[in-house]
């Protein structure tokens, strides 16, 4: 066995490299900066491009331009930068521009604490764009997830032509950790589907109600159009309510209908458990430590760790929660994803443990919560 020592942020960068990322732009911000630093070392010598924008808005703009010219792009920031990305995120959603966005979350609100962790952006990532259409959000719990989920994120961005977020956390991104790189089962690399040469190219034409448009790069042989305006299949402004409605519905369905192909999770199921803890991110590790202790002390506990947070894997959550007397949600904020769980498991009693003081939720807090709540 061989082990490698990497920061979560470095693992993201290497995952991006494995996924074929050849363009990165970002603006320095703790705790995400080491992604920019690592990409700066990886990409230029390999003929890729890594640049530092004058601000987060420019960094996103560079990425969107480069993505539409056919490159595989990524950017990385923390909560304050996601705020500045917002308008360009809406653009990438509505105009179907593949991009991977890493959010190494830090304690908010606002400037908050640069070097303290939190999972405070979980609803923000889903809803922090105009129009309210879905995005994909994946949540790593450790360094090997940072590596693996980044590769998945690129594949999903290419497959569905949409922004894909990695909801990391200072506690993962800036923690150096051992992993067995060779043991991480990486999926094969996916490229966006090229449009056939033999038909006139309509940049947003799709087949079916949940299709994804085929791609031709801006600057290729065939003329390609990209626009942030409400558009029809030809990429020109449309005011036809039927065309508009169909397109909005498709932007939802293209993700939601395929959710089962990217529902990532870990589970630790104990046969006699009456309690299921649903969690994600760094908190999942405290939950696992607590579950082991509970098991030793005679209270077996099951754990479902979600790695796909958005779109919400409702079918999975319902299936895994069935038969449990109690469900508990543990997350590093004052209650965000709990709203999804309560909505889905409306017949369950769903308890909540959260914390937002810059510290990790400890296994003993969770153990106490499980045994006393």
């Amino acid at each position: 066995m061989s082990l490698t020592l990497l920061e979560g942020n470095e693992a993201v960068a290497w995952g991006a490299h494995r996924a074929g990322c050849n363009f990165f732009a970002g603006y320095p911000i703790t705790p995400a900066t080491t992604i920019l630093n690592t990409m700066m070392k990886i990409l230029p010598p390999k003929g890729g491009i890594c640049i530092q924008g004058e601000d987060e808005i420019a960094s996103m703009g560079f990425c969107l331009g480069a993505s539409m010219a056919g490159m595989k792009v990524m950017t990385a920031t923390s909560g304050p930068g996601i705020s500045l990305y917002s308008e360009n995120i809406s653009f990438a959603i509505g105009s179907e521009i593949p991009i991977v966005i890493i959010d190494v979350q830090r304690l908010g609100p606002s400037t908050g604490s640069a070097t303290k962790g939190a999972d405070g952006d979980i609803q923000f990532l889903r809803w922090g764009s105009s129009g309210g259409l879905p995005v994909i959000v994946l949540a790593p719990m450790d360094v090997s997830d940072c590596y693996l989920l980044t590769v998945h994120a690129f594949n999903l961005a290419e497959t569905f032509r949409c922004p894909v977020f990695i909801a990391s956390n200072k506690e993962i991104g800036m923690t150096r950790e051992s992993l067995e790189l060779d043991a991480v089962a990486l999926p094969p690399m996916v490229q966006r589907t090229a449009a056939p040469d033999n038909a006139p190219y309509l940049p947003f034409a799709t087949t079916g109600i949940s299709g994804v448009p085929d791609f031709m790069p801006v600057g290729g042989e065939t003329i390609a159009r990209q626009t942030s305006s409400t558009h029809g299949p030809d990429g020109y402004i449309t005011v036809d309510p039927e065309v508009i409605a169909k397109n909005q519905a498709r932007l939802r369905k293209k993700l939601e209908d395929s959710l089962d192909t990217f529902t990532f999770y870990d589970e630790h199921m104990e046969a006699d458990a009456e309690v299921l803890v649903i969690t994600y991110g760094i908190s999942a590790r405290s939950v696992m430590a607590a579950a082991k202790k509970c098991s030793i002390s005679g209270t077996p506990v099951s754990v479902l760790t979600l790695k796909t947070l958005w779109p919400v894997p409702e079918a999975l959550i319902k299936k895994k929660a069935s038969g449990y007397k109690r469900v508990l949600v543990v997350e590093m904020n004052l209650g965000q994803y709990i709203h999804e769980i309560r909505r889905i498991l409306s017949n369950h009693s769903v308890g909540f443990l959260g914390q937002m003081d810059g510290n990790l939720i400890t296994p003993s807090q969770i153990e106490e919560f499980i045994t006393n709540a």
Partner: protein
Amino acid sequence: MHSFIDSSRPPAYCPGCSHEVVTRALDKAFLQMGLHQNQVVIVSDIGCSGLFDIFFKTHAFHGLHGRALTYATGIKLARPDLHVVVTMGDGGLGIGGAHLLSTCRRNIDITLLILNNFNYGMTGGQFSATTPPDALVGSGFLNQIEKPMDACRVMRAAGASYVTRISAYQSDLSAEMEQAIRFNGFSAMDIWGICPGRYARRNKTTFKTIQAAIESLPPFHGPVPENFREEYGEHYRQKASMQKPLPAPMEVAKKFPALFNDRKEILILGSAGQRIVTAGEILSYAGLTAGLHATQKNDYPITVLRGHSACEVILSPDKIDYAGITAPDVILALGQEGIDRKKALFSNCREDTFVLVDSTAEIPDCRGTILSIDFKGKKIKRQDMAMAALSLLAQQQRLINPDMLEAALSIRFKGSTLDRVLALVRHFAIVENNG
């Protein structure tokens, strides 16, 4: 080809709008250059200047307000062979100011056409960054109390290597555009025109008033020699080609049997400049050589060479779940600031917690087994104390042994630095053995 303009989507501005004149001139410039439509990308901003991409049969990218230069930069970096032309109004100039300055500084080979008509036409004639103070606009008196910006002077000051100020009605506009597009570097044209739909209704604007206004200002006609330098993309690629590839992350094979079979929590506490974080990394690598999993968390302020430095390392034969420290097994207390930072954790020590303390530092009361070392007396420099402490752990076969430590050092250091740290840990061991 007779025109780059899409005959099925003819320009549709208000009657008499100078944007139409500019649209025709741009078409002519492309034709004069003998370009093919797929060699050109028009990146348009928001507002009436944002309609340009619709009327041309070229590649088109229409994004957010003020951000056109950022998309154009991404496209040009991805495809250096393309001709990238940005159309933006005086509105985009204002809201995208940061991008304007940075694009000038970068000198990337894109051409910016500022369609400057002194107001926000599309939203109803509000004042913009270039509205004269005496104009009547849709923003009440607000334009009267701001100074309009001279885009050309700002761009020259920001490092633009090609800037032209011109009237939309100048007869050689298309030839001027061709010059700007042909220029290898960032080129910008501040094109003054008439917005009959909004601005000219209340403000007398004619070909003549525009010409007179331009003539009253310092002239800008193309190349700005003081700012000449390499084109950004070419320069980038040249520099990039000289960078050494980053080696793939190193894999450390298990070489030694581990000295323990449960989770161990280690705190290394000191001050900036004491190489606390490096010591944590060495300890983690030493663990890896014994097939142990490791986590390392560092805590230090934003200042360099000032303040605390604290490092938390966990070593375990199993994958590490919770990566925080609750009850330390070993504390290396080497500097007061780090000790003070983590003082709460001292109360969690067990009797068998090994606490190594620099004799000049003070630690809170704790139950652990304390060993005080006079590093100074042993001629160990401040920046070498952490390494010496690791050497002592290894000598005592605590967590790691000397083989693991030396293997870790050869992973982390090379050449003369490696020789120096190896000498340090071996020498310190001898000093310690000799009492």
